[in-house]
């Protein structure tokens, strides 16, 4: 043992090992991403900027203003003011999210009984004003059209929305919660 | 010897003169001389049991009502014969109305009630006319009115026509309906014998029960109690419908076996086919398979054989009948007639009916039979009145005795009896 230690001390083997790694790294390509020139690809299901789902059939929001997202929200950053619409249906007059307080837990997505809110993969929305980070209904619906419209949105709900639509097997247009298989 | 259908061959049997000629109103003559308490004692001694379906001892019911000090007391004859398959009261109402009137006047005297109502089924307009005519005659003859038989007794009788609800055959719902309210059963207790029509003591008895009273008066309680089964004696009207050679109403001693009724009195199964099932006492009593038809038809023996005497309405089904369809038809009836007061019956009957109609249409699923049993079990014993119990037990008993037939419907996706 003593002998080995002496050899190590005499010949600076640790330093040589370290230097070897340094040389190796010098020759291999760099891992640093050059953000913002180079963008980070978001994984599917990434919890980014919020969007309100727009029903392609009607062009209106799917939200029924039940307020469950606001109720579950741990940071209480969702504000909903609902009213009776012209067709006597309930709708959200104002749907607002204070992004500066949001913790991106996506509980709102899970609480929603109709799949009306999503977190998009978009994450670049820093701004100099608080107003820009205060999402209104119009902004949230624009977000959907911008980032999630089309098959991407459908895909999202299949994969990331729980309970999935299949759990609400509907008879005669009436939702009836059924036990999840397995 | 016929007591209830006495004189029935006479085409004018409903007329008071013909009735008197055949010995009618003799019992009344005898009864008005007796003390009210003595009449109640005789009825009690005779062992007469209510013929409406539950088989409650009539004498006991009268004793309860008699013990209540409140006056006036009311007498109600339940002629709301709504149970599917039942038509036993109809011959009395249409052919022998004075027998009923005589029975009611005697009962009125016994119970010191001065007003009687006949709550008549809405679908019996002929009976209404006949009864009204008979009551008019009885008034003229002095059997009804302020001075019955010249003895200073008061008894008035009114016919009230129902509006066709099955539930109004239940005594408290009948009273509600009579008072002009929505026909729904009341909370019991208090029972009608204490708080009945217009919050006064009220005795509700079946047509056949009242019609037995003159017979007890005539032949005496001892002789009466020797007719038929010793536990529940007396003559009984059985009405047989379905696949028999000679369907109809038969007056037989209580306790005649089902086999005797079907094969001896009714001439066996129509066309010599084989028997598949019998419902012995109206649709709400449990169905019996052919193996069980040796039971005596009375209030005591029937429960031992897994069914009930009910109203004595025997429905006979031969081998060509789809029992799922029979069950479905019964549930359609119960769904339609459920009054809606209590949750299990209101919602459960509709649910059972929709599952059954799915099975009958060949859209049944494997778990449906278990669902049927479970849902029926959830109805039975939890409803407000016996209507729901009846609905539930129909399904339970049909599945109990004929489960393979239900399974076949589901497996084969349809009904093989459908033409």
């Amino acid at each position, binding site marked *: 043992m003593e002998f080995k230690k002496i050899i190590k001390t005499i010949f600076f083997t640790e330093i040589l090992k370290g230097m070897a790694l340094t040389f190796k790294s010098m020759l291999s390509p760099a891992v640093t991403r050059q953000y913002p020139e180079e963008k980070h690809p978001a994984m599917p299901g990434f919890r980014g900027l919020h969007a309100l789902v727009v029903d392609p059939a009607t062009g209106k929001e799917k939200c*029924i*203003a*039940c*307020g*469950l997202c*606001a*109720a579950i929200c741990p940071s209480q950053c969702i504000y909903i*003011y*609902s*009213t*009776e619409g012209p067709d*006597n*249906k*309930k*709708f959200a007059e104002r749907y607002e999210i204070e992004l500066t307080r949001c913790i991106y837990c996506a509980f709102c997505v899970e609480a929603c*009984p*109709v799949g009306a809110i999503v977190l998009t993969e978009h994450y670049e929305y820093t701004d100099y004003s608080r107003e820009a980070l205060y999402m209104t209904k119009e902004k949230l619906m624009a977000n959907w059209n911008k980032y999630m419209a089309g098959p991407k949105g459908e895909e999202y709900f299949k994969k990331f929305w729980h309970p999935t639509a299949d759990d609400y097997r509907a*008879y*005669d247009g*009436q*939702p*009836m*919660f*059924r*036990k999840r298989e397995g | 010897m016929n007591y209830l259908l006495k004189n029935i061959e006479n085409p004018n049997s409903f007329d008071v003169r013909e009735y008197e000629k055949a010995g009618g109103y003799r019992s009344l003559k005898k009864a008005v001389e007796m003390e009210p308490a003595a009449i109640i004692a005789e009825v009690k001694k005779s062992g007469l049991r209510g013929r409406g379906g539950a088989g409650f001892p009539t004498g006991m019911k009268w004793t309860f009502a008699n013990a209540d000090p409140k006056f006036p007391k009311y007498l109600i004859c339940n002629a709301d014969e709504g149970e599917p398959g039942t038509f036993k009261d109809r011959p009395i109402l249409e052919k022998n109305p004075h027998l009923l009137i005589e029975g009611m006047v005697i009962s009125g005297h016994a119970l010191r009630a001065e007003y009687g109502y006949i709550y008549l089924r809405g679908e019996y307009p002929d009976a209404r006319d006949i009864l009204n005519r008979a009551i008019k005659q009885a008034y003229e003859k002095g059997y009804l009115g302020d001075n019955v038989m010249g003895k200073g007794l008061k008894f008035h009788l009114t016919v009230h026509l129902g509006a066709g*609800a099955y539930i109004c055959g239940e005594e408290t719902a009948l009273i509600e309906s009579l008072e002009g309210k*929505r026909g729904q059963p009341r*909370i019991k207790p208090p029972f009608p014998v204490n708080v009945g029509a217009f919050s006064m003591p009220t005795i509700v008895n079946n047509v056949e029960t009242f019609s037995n009273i003159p017979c007890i008066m005539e032949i005496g309680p001892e002789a009466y109690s020797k007719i038929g089964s010793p536990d529940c004696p007396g003559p009984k009207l059985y009405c047989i419908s379905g696949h028999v050679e000679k369907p109809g109403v038969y007056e037989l001693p209580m306790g005649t076996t089902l086999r005797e009724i079907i094969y001896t009195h009714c001439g066996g199964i129509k066309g010599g086919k084989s028997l598949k099932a019998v419902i012995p006492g109206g649709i709400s009593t449990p169905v019996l398979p052919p193996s069980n038809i040796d039971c005596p038809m009375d209030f005591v023996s029937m429960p031992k054989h897994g069914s009930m005497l009910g109203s004595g309405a025997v429905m006979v089904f031969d081998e060509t009948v789809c029992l799922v369809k029979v069950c479905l038809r019964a549930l359609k009836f119960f*769904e*339609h*007639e*459920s*009054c*809606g*007061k*209590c*949750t*299990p019956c*209101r*919602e*459960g*009957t*509709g*649910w059972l009916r*929709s*599952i059954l109609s*799915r099975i009958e249409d060949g859209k049944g699923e494997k778990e449906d039979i278990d*669902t049927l049993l479970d*849902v029926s079990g*959830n109805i039975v*014993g*939890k*409803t*407000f009145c016996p209507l729901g119990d009846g609905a539930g037990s129909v399904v339970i008993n049909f599945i109990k005795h004929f489960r393979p037939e239900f399974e076949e419907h589901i497996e084969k996706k349809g009904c093989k009896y459908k033409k």
Partner: protein
Amino acid sequence: MITITINNKEIRLERPVTVLEAAKANGIKIPHFCHHGILEQWGGCRMCLVEVEKMPRLQTACTLFVTDGMVVMTESETISNARRSVLEFILINHPLDCPVCDKAGECKLQDYVMQYGPTAGRFKEPKIRHPEGLNDPLIVRNQERCIMCTRCVRMCSGIQGASAIAVTNRGNHSSMEPFSGERFDCEYCGNCLTVCPVGAIMSRLHRYSYRSWQVTDEIQTVCPFCGVGCTMIAQVRDNALMRVVPKLGLGSNKGLLCNRGRFGYEYVGSGERLKNPLIKKNGKLQPASWEEALDTVASRLKDIKNSSGGNAIAGIAGARCTNEDNYAFQKLIRGLGSNNIDSIARMGFAGGQRIFEGMLGPGVTSTPLSGIADSDAVLVVGGDPSEVNPVLGVHIRMAFKKGAKVITIGHAPGLGRHRTAGLLPHPQADGVVMGGLISAILKDKKSLPGGNRPLEEKITVMHLPSADDAAAACKLSAEDIGRLAKQLAGASSVSIVVGREAGGNKDTAMLVSVLSYILNARIYLMSERPNEQGLVDMGCLPDMLPGGRPLAEEGLRKKCGASWGIDIPADEGLTLMEMIQAASSGGIKAMYVMGENPAFNLPDTKNTEEALRRLDFLVVQDIFMTETARMADVVLPALSWIEKDGTYTNAERKIQRLKKAISITGMEDWKIVAEVGKRIGLKMPYGKAADIMKEIARVSPLHAGLTYADIEGGDNLWPYKGEPHKNWFSFPELSADAFTSPAEEGLCLMLEKPLFHSGTLSRKSPALNSISPEAVLRLSPATASGLNLKDGDFAKVSTEKGSLSLKVKIDRGIDGPAAFVSNNFEGRGLFSLTGYRLDPVTKSPLTEGRQISIEKE
């Protein structure tokens, strides 16, 4: 003593109650839908099934009465299976639309399904659908959600007595329907809403506007519409009033409300609310700053005081304002050297109460409302309690249901189905009938009860008409009067409910006192405004100081004056109508009106308006631009009932707290008055309403030592902790013509007190306007057909004073030749058609000139 065992816990009970009640009283919860403490038993939902030893079937706890030795289990596997199955049954046809249902969060079904319900549904068939009933402006019916507990029906027929709804159809197609079809045509009390355990009947007003858990604050306050002073809870979200709800069992109303209380609150958020002070410049009211407005008021009042003396200034206090407001107001007016302060209570309430107290003793109208329902006989005179004070009316109906004899003298259509007898003498001849009743009762009783000698002496010299004479004078049958007298005399507990018309007439009021004395009856004085009693108690009367102390008592006057730092003039001021007369003759130069609308609410509108126009200076302090405010030189915007703290004193003389639920910019009435007072040089150092209460407690002997904590703690019943004024008897003389019925024949114009309206506030409530949008002429079918008028026709109603064109409404509740017009809608008030004479003692204006002619237009 009954001993039972529930869940192995031994429970002792004094009297047999139901198992459910016994369990509840001992903290054991049994779930139930159809049972409700105040409703009759039903036993239909089957949710409360329990196991009872020696009973083969499960029993409903709500209908089963306990018997000694009963052993009950409320939790077991059988029971939870039963509960689960009942919930499953309910859910098969119940839509799972909780996300949009307004009831979610306070729904019993939701709670029970969470607790006991199945996790998965097995029902695969189509559900039974019912379209939502949206045809009614106030009540939405969603029959899909209905669980047929029939609580609403039992409430409507059993408690409210309206019998407007029923269950139709049968079985699983049953639904609750109003008899009037798709739209309700009922009293709109909304008590069915209170008892619905699910979202089947809901208010349209706040539909879809918030979820129950989003309510940020719940404040218990008092209804601002009438003198019953119903306790209610205001639900607030983000500083906006979302709705008011009663709480069953709470307050004198025990959780019942009427349409005004329940649906009338929307005026608070009305866009027509006054926001800025207005000053009349060049003949037009123009916005001004608070400083400018207050300075103008103070300097003009001071000028007029200096030039014409304090007596040229008059104040009308507000029956909608709190005790604190009114106390400050009378202090201001007295500080200006005037006793000319009065209020709308002069129309009958104050005068009537003075006579009752004078003849029977102080505090005689301080009777708890619950006493009515326990009465054996109720006599109603001079008004329709079911319309003026609807919740009081419900108590009378409850008494009738329990078997009490209810007798009405005069028109009371609201009690049409709940009375033993209704006497309809000429509207000015109530006294004749009363006289006949009294003499018939005395004839039977032979002797007076003794105890109140002066009153008995008075009775012996009253020259009461015999029952026959009374009957002849007012065209009634003598047998009727005799029979009713027997019924009243035979009852062991009698309540007399007195309306404004009877209270204002000294003869009728005296006869009520006499009747109350000989029958030992309780007197209930109907109060049309929330704080009429408060006006009296706070000294807003020309001859009374706070605490119901007469001005004439020098010691107290001096003491009051000293504590306020002023000299209170010793002369009694002018009463309400005298002020108006003085204004028109120039005796009054300035008037300060707080929370009142004299230009519309006082009789003989045209002359009143004229008089107000003649004033040199008129200040109106209100929350809306009323007819009076339009004439004002300065208009000061105040705060509404939900925006301020304070107290109301209701008709039972119970002081109740009003609490601030929402805050908006502006000043409370007392604050405005205090600001004016400060500018005049009065000591009014009030920072909050409680400061005024402290001063009241110091100044008023009746309210001595009373604090808000006492009031909330239940020390709120007369005479509180203070001293009532004693030894104050006065017996006015009956008029010579007290027992003569006017000879007038033909159609008589009557004031309709509409159920759906009560003046300034209600006419700004969209909900109340939607059910009663316009002034109508109500006629009985016979009268209408005699005049060849049909429902919806327009008719011109003319009297000596003027004429109005009104829509005809045929009302089957009206008996006799009477035409009813309300005094509620702008420009269409009855008071523009009638004149008045002043009662010599009560100084209340008594309506005159009821002869009308009606022409079809």
